């Protein structure tokens, strides 16, 4: 005889009729702080308790920077080809299509021109959610064209990098995007149009070794991973654990490759003051 008699049946809802709790309402930072998404959004996606900068994409950066989120998108239609007929576990065009469906983006960078606090600015911003923000022909071409636009209209250029590096599936083509973007930046530099490079978490590989490090001002957000080789590769090469804070934006600043680190909540004000100082 049992001590308790169950009056009602247990869970009787079949799994397929199970109601999910709404996903993504709360965000947990790596240090364990929990914050409501609405509050996070009104705080430029920085957790107020531990100042953790959540990874965001072009949509959010444009929202944060452009006045009233008003901007004209440049070359939004460009999509990737498959020059090498590349296949690993998946065919490259299938991988692109799946990524486009998942993210609603065409590729890993978007460009826009608009005003920040009344000043004209061209922004190209990478999206890490699209195949790790990897740089293929579309990324290279869109950045090159955004620089062309800056050059033609003499408007300062802001590049927001967030990438694991070159896109392997375009092999030689993706390597040459480093050259292409650097060539355009050389022209921008000759024309004395300001270029601000914002390196966000993470910026590594071929992106670091080309446009991301070529700013008149190289700036970053707190706690971002910035490097050429990835930490895993370096650990395997030297056979030792890496020191704490290695390749963080603070480390890169200390070694002289960044001008300053800016909290995302002050980003727009800081950029505005830079542009203003150069203009007047």
């Amino acid at each position, binding site marked *: 005889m049992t001590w308790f008699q169950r009056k009602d049946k247990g869970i009787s809802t079949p799994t397929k009729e199970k109601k999910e709790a709404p996903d993504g309402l709360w965000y947990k930072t790596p240090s364990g702080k929990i914050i409501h998404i609405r509050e996070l959004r009104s705080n430029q996606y920085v957790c107020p308790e531990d100042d953790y900068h959540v990874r965001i994409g072009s949509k959010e950066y444009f929202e944060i920077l452009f006045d009233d989120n008003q901007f004209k998108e440049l070359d939004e239609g460009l999509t990737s080809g498959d020059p090498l007929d590349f296949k690993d576990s998946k065919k490259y065009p299938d991988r692109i299509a799946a990524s486009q469906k998942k993210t609603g983006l065409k590729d890993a960078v978007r460009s826009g021109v608009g005003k920040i606090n009344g000043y004209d600015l061209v922004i190209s911003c990478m999206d890490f959610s699209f195949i790790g923000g990897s740089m293929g022909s579309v990324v290279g071409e869109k950045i090159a064209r955004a620089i062309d636009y800056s050059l033609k209209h003499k408007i300062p250029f802001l590049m927001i990098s967030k990438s694991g590096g070159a896109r392997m599936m375009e092999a030689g083509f993706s390597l040459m995007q480093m050259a292409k973007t650097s060539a355009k930046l050389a022209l921008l530099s000759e024309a004395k149009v300001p270029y601000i490079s914002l390196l966000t978490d993470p910026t590594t590989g071929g992106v670091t070794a080309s446009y991301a490090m070529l700013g008149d001002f190289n700036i970053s957000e707190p706690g971002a991973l910035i490097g*050429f080789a990835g930490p895993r590769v370096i650990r395997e090469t030297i056979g030792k654990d890496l020191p704490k804070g290695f390749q963080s934006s603070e480390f890169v600043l200390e070694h002289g490759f960044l001008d300053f680190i800016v909290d995302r909540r002050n980003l727009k004000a800081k950029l505005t003051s830079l542009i203003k100082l150069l203009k007047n």
Partner: protein
Amino acid sequence: MHGDRAVKDDKAMVGGFGSIDGQSVMFIGQQKGRNTKQRQMRNFGMANPDGYRKALRLMKMAEKFNKPIVTLIDTPGAFPGLEAEERGQGEAIARNLKEMFMLKVPVICIVIGEGASGGALGIAIGDRVLMMENTWYSVISPESCSSILWRSWDYKEQAAEALKLSSSDMLGNKLIDGIVPEPLGGAHADFEEAANKIKNIIKENLTELLAMTPEERIDSRINKFADMGVYN
């Protein structure tokens, strides 16, 4: 010539003036070493930031004295080490890319062995980019590509196939300007003959390039790289 005038002399990158039938040329290239001891000293041809900065110093000197530049590329990649990161490997390569586009003198780049990734590109922005017949040039070595995409080194042949990194594939995709034929059995079978072929190709290309003005060279150098890429 030695040293980047800032930190040290990187032995994976060598350079200095030489002469081809009376025409002075600045030669710059990675050096891998031929035996274990040399390879260690040369760090297997993997340069640190100091190597890229030395290369740039020599290129600027060549420009100052109006001498053409020839770079010889043979590297498994830029060195992925602790100190390389501290001293800005990414910045050093990026600066070379940007500065090489604006060099007023002719620049000829030849891949003579391995041409891996940014480590190769860091001295490979030129009016003519050539590959020796049996070399490879790509965004990543087939070994590393295999370990990233297939999580094992066992698929390196498959990776090499997929990357289309041979000289004929690279030429077909218009990512390089030409191929230097190798002697029967490969360049290693007859150094003298291979060197002669390289010399002749350099001379041919220099004649063409010296007939152009610096502005024409810079424009066509930029336009050539700006046209690379496939998109819809």
